[in-house]
């Protein structure tokens, strides 16, 4: 926790997202949310459904843009970018791991991991070398030539983590990555994610499972679009959420 900001792979500052603004159906999905994630850090976002945790992930990954505040990905502010440039930045900087349906069924494990690099325009042989190295880092290099249906759920998630962090990508966004797994397989996936982060990646994890959130350095809890609690500073050196915000929500009657 150094207060230094230049190294953050993700920096969200007062980010808010309003749907149907100015109409009776107006919904504040997220309110004034600030969070920084540096290399070597894993941050978990928890909360009930509708709390805004998916919105955090969508904004962090540039899949959606905030209606207020700013999102800076790998040093570039998403706000001023065209849709096309935003997509390019997203592809270059961010990898995703979802609960399931992560891998292309018709491709082998190594081909799945090569895919983002081939889209980057990297030569096939280079992409293959990088993909094998990425699989090695998550301990499934021996499964490189298997198809997804020949892999267990836990093995598929390891391949998905390898794909998320192949090549220059250093930020992995994970949405309930252990959701469909039994407790030991889920633990193994969290161990791999933790190890990749400890090796220099940055991770943002959305989960409703406290046991998996506990692998993170910081756990942020959301309710109704507000931060209601955190086990650490949201933004290094800046301090936790203002007490007033927490108190307002704790008051409860909205």
């Amino acid at each position, binding site marked *: 926790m150094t207060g230094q900001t230049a190294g953050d792979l993700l920096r969200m500052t007062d980010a808010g997202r309003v749907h149907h603004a100015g109409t009776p159906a107006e919904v504040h999905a997220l309110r004034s949310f600030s969070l920084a994630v540096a290399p070597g850090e894993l941050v978990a976002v928890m909360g009930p459904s509708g709390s805004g945790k998916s919105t955090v992930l969508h904004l962090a990954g540039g899949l959606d843009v905030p209606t207020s505040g700013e999102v800076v990905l790998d040093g570039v502010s998403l706000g001023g970018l065209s849709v096309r440039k935003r997509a390019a930045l997203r592809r270059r900087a961010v990898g995703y791991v979802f609960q399931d349906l992560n891998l292309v069924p018709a491709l082998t494990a190594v081909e799945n991991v090569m895919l983002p690099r081939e889209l980057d325009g990297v030569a096939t042989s280079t992409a293959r070398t990088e993909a094998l190295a990425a699989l090695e880092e998550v301990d499934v290099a021996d499964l490189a030539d298997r198809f997804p249906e020949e892999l267990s759920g836990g093995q598929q998630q390891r391949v998905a983590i390898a794909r998320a962090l192949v090549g220059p990508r250093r930020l992995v966004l994970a949405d309930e990555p252990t959701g469909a797994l039994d407790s030991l397989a889920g633990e193994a996936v969290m161990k791999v994610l933790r190890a990749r982060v400890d090796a220099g990646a940055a991770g943002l994890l959305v989960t409703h499972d*406290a*046991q998996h959130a*506990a692998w993170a350095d910081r*756990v942020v*809890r959301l309710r109704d679009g507000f931060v209601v*609690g955190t086990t650490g500073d949201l933004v290094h050196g800046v301090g936790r959420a203002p007490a007033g915000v927490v*108190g307002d*929500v*704790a008051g*409860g009657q909205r």
Partner: protein
Amino acid sequence: MSIRHSLLSLLAEGDRHGYQLRQEFEGRTGGTWPVNIGQVYTTLGRLCRDGLAEEVGKQDDGSVTYRITPAGKAEVDTWWTSPVTRAAPDRDETSIKVALAVSSPGVDVLAVLETEREETLRALQAYTRAKTRIPDHPTGGELARLLVLDQQIFTAEAQARWLDHCEQRLAATQGSVR
């Protein structure tokens, strides 16, 4: 927690001195429940009184060797094969605090829940960090420690889920639409 049965089960594996029993108990339960040597000797005294163990020799340094009796072996067998009674759960301070908070005027129950939840999550993080220091294929004392840590993690997780549930129930009781 039954120190009595734990020590007796160790004696069932062979004769031991008091300090050996203490060392073995702590090592094999992952160092989670420290016992002081006085507690060990008090327990051994009671086991001898009840005919479940006996003194079988004294060394020059005064340390006594204990041996399990046939009655003691039967007692250990019964312990392994019967469930630990859950009829009288330990007093849990968090439950008591939350229960009182609901009926105490001027106490912000949701704030109490949030404070407890943050502490529970911090504990979960600490247990999880401790778990990462155990090798991938643990044996002996490390495996015991891992299983005990797992138990603490599952218990803390249950606590976190219960605190979430309290919050939802309070919201439902107060008539908010969820």
